[in-house]
């Protein structure tokens, strides 16, 4: 089991729960609003996300995807995006807002996102059945 931790500088890592869990997730100064696209989805904040127990779903070229179980019982998928450090906050947010507005039964919905210089997270709805690749070649 893992948890995400975000340091005061905004950098974060998913660490083993048994090891370093030094910084208090309850620190109100550090609480960061996540932006939500859908009013019907129960809102959670970054601290909820960081407290969630998580497991690695897959490691792709662009980053690692986790399945996170929130304390509220909700299950979501979080992608930590790499290789986007040269991107400005504005560019990232604009694209996420555009993509987050889309609704279709055959698209995995983007629930929320987080941007800091060191860390970019995209929160997706969790789809339970694995990928087509696993289904075909597993």
């Amino acid at each position, binding site marked *: 089991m893992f948890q995400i931790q975000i340091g005061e500088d905004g950098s974060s890592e998913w660490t083993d729960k048994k090891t370093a869990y030094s910084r208090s997730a309850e620190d109100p100064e550090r609480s960061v609003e996540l932006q939500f696209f859908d009013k019907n989805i129960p809102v959670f904040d970054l601290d909820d996300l960081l407290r969630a127990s998580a497991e690695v779903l*897959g490691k792709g070229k662009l980053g690692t995807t986790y399945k996170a179980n929130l304390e509220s019982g909700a299950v979501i998928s979080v992608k930590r995006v790499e290789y986007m450090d040269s991107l400005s906050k504005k560019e990232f947010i604009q694209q996420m807002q555009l993509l987050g507005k889309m609704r279709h039964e055959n698209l995995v919905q983007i629930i929320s996102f987080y941007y800091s210089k060191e860390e970019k997270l995209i929160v997706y709805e969790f789809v339970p059945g694995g990928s087509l690749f696993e289904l075909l070649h597993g």
Partner: protein
Amino acid sequence: MIRNYVAITTLSSDKLYLWLLENRGVGRIPLNWAARFSIIKDIAKGMAFLHQSLPSHKVPHANLKSSNVLIHRDRHSYHSKLTNYGFLPLLPSRKLSEMLAVGRSPEFCQGKKLTHKADVYCFGIILLEVITGKIPGGTSPEGNYEIADDLSDWVRMVVNNDWSTDILDVEILASREGHNEMMKLTEIALQCTDMAPEKRPKMSEVLIRIEEIDRTNRGND
């Protein structure tokens, strides 16, 4: 690849089946044709929607591949949802966009500009992957699969030799009632994977044709 092919033609069909299964996981549940067709139709619906919703985007999905198609099941059927879409504007350099699925399209490799048709190419590759059960060229996560270098060329070769059902995944070969659909989808896949982007159909046309095949063969109204 060729050596393996020659070797397996000397085996009986039972042994061939086992040989092919051995390349997959132990305890694997075969994925039947109805499930594959339903998954394909859902991908086409998602792609047509993306292309319609983001007309000004160069390549709306840009990262369409089987690991970015997520599956959910209800009691009766399989459904699919596309993920990791819309990343091309987030990866401004050529070196970075090469990591996306469109990085394996002919136009990208030739340094030409990308359009919606690069997504159509990736869709065609997925179709071939679902029909043949082969992994498109490149490396698999564990590196223990048989890898075809260029799947679309391989399929073209087989189809042109009138050996069309030879391309089918062994798991769907026995569903003879589906062969007509499989061949029609292979035809669409070959058009989608045309080297020339302008010769590929639009996603909206692909969806119409797949829905038409569905209506004709399943007797839906």
